[in-house]
């Protein structure tokens, strides 16, 4: 399984792997907002948590279409599915590798983008923590979407449509937690724990659902 993680990470670093496209896309989304909102820094810093979360959400969807479709194209999927390892664990590792190469860089890049949006240091810290806890869930849910659309030639659009509604709870609790950290009466802990719970929940359910899907879509 460690070999699989190493291979996935190697693949995303190599040419055509798209390791940094997530961060670049994140940058693109986040940097257009100030132009749209205008020079009102107060409004911008108020909107910043939501902007950062939406940016991260969209950026995390990148590369999901390749998760299984590419494996299927070159015949690797058959071999991955045949091995004695539980398929759900294999998918868990693949989703984890996807998060490592798309979600994790977003967390690291957040301070820079936070400054662009006039977010306070406390807000930046809260955003990083909630993104760190929440973005893995997007990869785990995304694995289900990728498994569903594995046979479709251009399934990336379908994946986004399937996955986005399912990740809305994470978005709600993630942004609520940041707001809680910044504004006094609102709580931080409760929504943050919800984010953690969703991630833990999807880390089990996502790979399981995707493995059932992959087994049944084999032909």
């Amino acid at each position, binding site marked *: 399984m460690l070999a699989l993680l190493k291979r996935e990470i190697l*693949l995303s670093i190599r040419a055509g792997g798209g390791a940094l496209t997530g961060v670049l896309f994140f940058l693109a989304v986040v940097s257009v907002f100030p132009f749209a909102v205008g020079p009102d820094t107060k409004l911008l810093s108020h909107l910043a948590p939501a902007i950062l979360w939406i940016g991260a959400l969209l950026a995390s969807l990148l590369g999901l279409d390749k998760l299984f479709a590419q494996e299927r194209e070159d015949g*690797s999927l058959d071999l991955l599915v045949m*091995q004695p390892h539980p398929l759900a664990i294999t998918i868990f590792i693949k989703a984890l590798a996807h998060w490592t190469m798309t979600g994790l860089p977003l967390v690291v890049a957040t301070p820079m983008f936070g400054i662009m949006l006039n977010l306070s240091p406390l807000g930046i810290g809260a955003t990083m923590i909630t993104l760190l806890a929440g973005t893995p869930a997007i990869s785990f849910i995304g694995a289900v979407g990728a498994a569903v659309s594995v046979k479709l030639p251009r399934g990336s659009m379908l994946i986004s449509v399937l996955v986005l509604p399912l990740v809305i709870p994470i978005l709600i609790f993630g942004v609520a937690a940041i707001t809680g950290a910044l504004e006094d009466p609102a709580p931080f802990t409760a929504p943050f724990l919800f984010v953690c719970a969703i991630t833990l929940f999807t880390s089990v359910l996502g790979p399981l659902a995707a493995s059932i899907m992959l087994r049944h879509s084999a032909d």
Partner: protein
Amino acid sequence: MKLIIEKLNLNRASQEIVSNISFELSAGEALIVTGENGSGKSTTLRGIAGLMPLNDGSIRLLDETGKQFEGEVREYCHYLGHQNGMKPALTVRENLDFWQKFCGEPDLSIEEALDEVDLAHTIDLPFSYLSAGMKRRVSIARLLVSDRPIWILDEPTAGLDAQSVKMFTELCKNFCEGGGILIAATHLPLGIETERTLEIKASN
């Protein structure tokens, strides 16, 4: 060790492709699956490899005492399909190293396996740099790096030149002599003593 296939029945998009295939193979035996294009050779092989849901029938692997092996039969199989299952962006060594570690049961080292297919010099080249025949030979080397008692090969010699085909039949012979079970869809006889042929006819 004995592989028993009984009344195999496979559908593709609710259309029956393969019906009522039964055979038994003991350790050291080889089965050549022949048939016209579209007669269901690949479907049969994929069914045995556990890559397609069975409509009906059973696939069992028994040991000498008649006891069934633990787990699914597919876990004891190497499958070589039409595609090579290698990543173009990785080197030959990285590709084989991954499959060896992921499949477990290491057998030959990567260097030895590549020596067997005469590709030792390509070990550090990206897989995408190789020609079609060389790619095929690397995926044949994959069969050697981890140990599986059953080989399921779908058109294994596609793209190979005469010399490589000879080398490949030699490998198959060695595998069967070592007690392996081989099932291959190919138009070439492999020249294995224990070789049998199964002709699949299109079911409609």
